[in-house]
């Protein structure tokens, strides 16, 4: 149903936000490869390069659309991007609204060319 080669990666400072957003998205995008990294290694508020790398590896897709909440998550995401073989597209958009939109569109078989203009409207960072 969806192009399994494109997946979604969610990075939040808080484990509950990442898990909750996955729950929200699963209702509209059951088949999209989606992995999350929330909080620090001990589930505190922050981000973890190790968790981000694990989420990248665990994702079945080899091309990822990545979303994050606050700036320091982006710093770690970009580090992970440099270390990874996968193609990671990083979007400076609203986390919840952006990840939801991209996932819903992927589920409906939209191409990256259709998704990116919609994400552009959500750019706030």
């Amino acid at each position: 149903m969806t192009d399994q080669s494109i997946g979604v990666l969610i990075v939040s400072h808080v484990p509950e936000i990442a898990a909750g957003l996955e729950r929200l998205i699963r209702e509209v995008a059951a088949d999209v490869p989606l992995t999350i990294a929330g909080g620090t290694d001990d589930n505190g508020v922050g981000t973890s390069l190790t968790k981000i790398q694990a989420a990248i590896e665990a994702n079945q897709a080899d091309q990822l659309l990545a979303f994050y909440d606050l700036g320091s998550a982006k710093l770690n995401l970009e580090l992970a991007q440099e270390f990874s073989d996968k193609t990671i597209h990083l979007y400076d958009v609203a986390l919840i609204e952006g990840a939801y939109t991209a996932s819903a569109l992927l589920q409906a078989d939209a191409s990256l060319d259709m998704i990116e203009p919609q994400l552009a409207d959500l750019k706030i960072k």
Partner: protein
Amino acid sequence: MLTVENTLKWLALFNQAIQTNQAQLSALDTPIGDGDHGHNMARGMTAVTEVLADKAPTDVPAILKLTAMNLITKVGGAAGPLYGTAFLEMAKKSAETLEIAPLLSAGLAGVEKRGHATVGEKTLIDVWQPVIAQLEQGPLTAEAVTTAVEATAALRATKGRASYLGERSIGHVDPGAASSGYLFTTMLEAGINHD
């Protein structure tokens, strides 16, 4: 013309239609939404049915208001505040008239305000609007209701969850339009039509 009797009958038939077609309504909500519209409406109408069985109000405004409050608080999705506001506005209007066209028209105005939406956005409004237009001129037919429901397939959604899909929302019947289809076909079954 609404009476206590035909209003209660209408709501009972609408509840039955929703319960019977719950799976279909949720299935319509799957490609362009989150797949819960049937479940949401069933939860709301179960609550309405229970509360009406418990203490059946003896005037139309009270029945409509009780329906509204239960839909608002029990549905859990966008359909709750929307159908709830529709029944709330109908309840208010019913102090003034019991003719169906102006009542539904007041309800539609409530939906449009609540949803910041208008005709053509692939929502239940696209069923309410043609239904009311026909009722203002003469009797409504079940065929006209079905036609309006099916016509939503061609529309591109610009409100609600389906709007996130842009172009990809085209080709699917809107679930809220479908549940409103049942609202109006059961209204006809309850004997309520152009006066």
